[in-house]
């Protein structure tokens, strides 16, 4: 049972190992807090749409399953978007169009197609939660690294001294690609030596 949960965090980490959901991973991780909010929002959509699909798995006809999944997923994304706008409007506007783009996050559709649509509700909950936590982990690590090298802070708290000159490239697209590339390589190196 516990294996369903843990696999998503390390061995089958959606970002570092499976290389899925790259658009939000690269786009919103300019700071720890943005990465964390995106991770939480995605996990919420992943788990709730997973539960709905698992519960309806015998009712959804096979031919139209992808379209049905998309409708369920996009309904939950609408819920998240409205919640964010109402309660944390600053973060909602910082994430911009990347929040609604959770709809096309391949981690979600991938999980539903490969797991939720075939497994009972309990297993689905654990699997989806594990993948969600793995995604949050990846976004938080990438967000922290980029924020640290951009202005010497993590989550807004000063880590490097005032001598640190801010490195604007880290919050630009090129910095996103390069930091993720180095993290993926590091992850591969670590899991090799195990």
């Amino acid at each position: 049972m516990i294996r369903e949960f843990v696999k998503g965090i390390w061995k089958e980490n959606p970002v570092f190992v499976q290389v899925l959901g790259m658009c939000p991973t690269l786009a919103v991780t300019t700071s720890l807090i943005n990465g964390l909010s995106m991770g939480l929002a995605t996990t919420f959509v992943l788990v709730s749409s997973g539960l709905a699909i698992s519960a309806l798995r015998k009712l959804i006809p096979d031919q139209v399953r992808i379209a049905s999944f998309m409708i369920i997923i996009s309904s939950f994304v609408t819920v998240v978007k409205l919640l964010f706008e109402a309660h944390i409007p600053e973060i909602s506007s910082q994430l911009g169009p990347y929040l609604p783009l959770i709809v096309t996050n391949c981690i979600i559709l991938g999980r539903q197609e490969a797991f939720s649509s075939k497994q009972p509700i309990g297993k689905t909950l654990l699997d989806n939660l594990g993948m969600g936590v793995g995604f949050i982990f990846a976004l938080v690590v990438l967000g922290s690294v980029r924020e640290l090298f951009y202005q010497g802070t993590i989550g807004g708290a000063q880590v490097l001294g005032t001598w640190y000159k801010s490195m604007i490239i880290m919050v630009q697209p090129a910095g996103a690609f390069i930091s993720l590339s180095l993290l993926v390589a590091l992850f591969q190196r670590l899991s090799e030596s195990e």
Partner: protein
Amino acid sequence: MELFFIFVAIVLTQNFVLHYFLGICPFLGVSDEMEGAFGMGIATTFVMTLTAIITWNINTFILKAFNVEFLEYVSFILVIASLVQLVEMFLKKYLPELYETLGIYLPLITTNCAVLGLALFMVLREYNFVESAIFGFGAGVGFTLALVIMAGIRGELNEEDIPKPFRGTAITLLVAGLLALAFMGFSGLVPT
């Protein structure tokens, strides 16, 4: 002139792949050979242009007119999914040769976030009809450009001796980073 700037911006300075990180999955996954990359690019451009035209109409005449903008995501994704299906059926029936070339890429386009992203950006920037159509077409051209460049570089990389942990994804991301740096050189082409 305004329209020309929209086109140049979306192809070069604000390229969907290298600036907005949209459509990264096909960019990292499919682009191994030139021909495949080009086919994928053309098919996506086609769907993107149509998506821009249709979602603009839906947004203006249905969602805004009846005040149901909260249905935006559900209706857009439905449009995209059915559009891809429609294009597939049309090509199969009337242009079987083209279908042979593009066929395998078409279903993948539904989950390409660049297509939904395009519709969302269009609404956010409040483009009019002609601007939207240009924007959609330009986004497709920019996507094709990035994909073809990447395919070329990866072809060369296959010959090289890459350090083990970097093989596969990491080196591709590194190349993408360098490409993004290079594309930053275009900034300033379009007055903001």
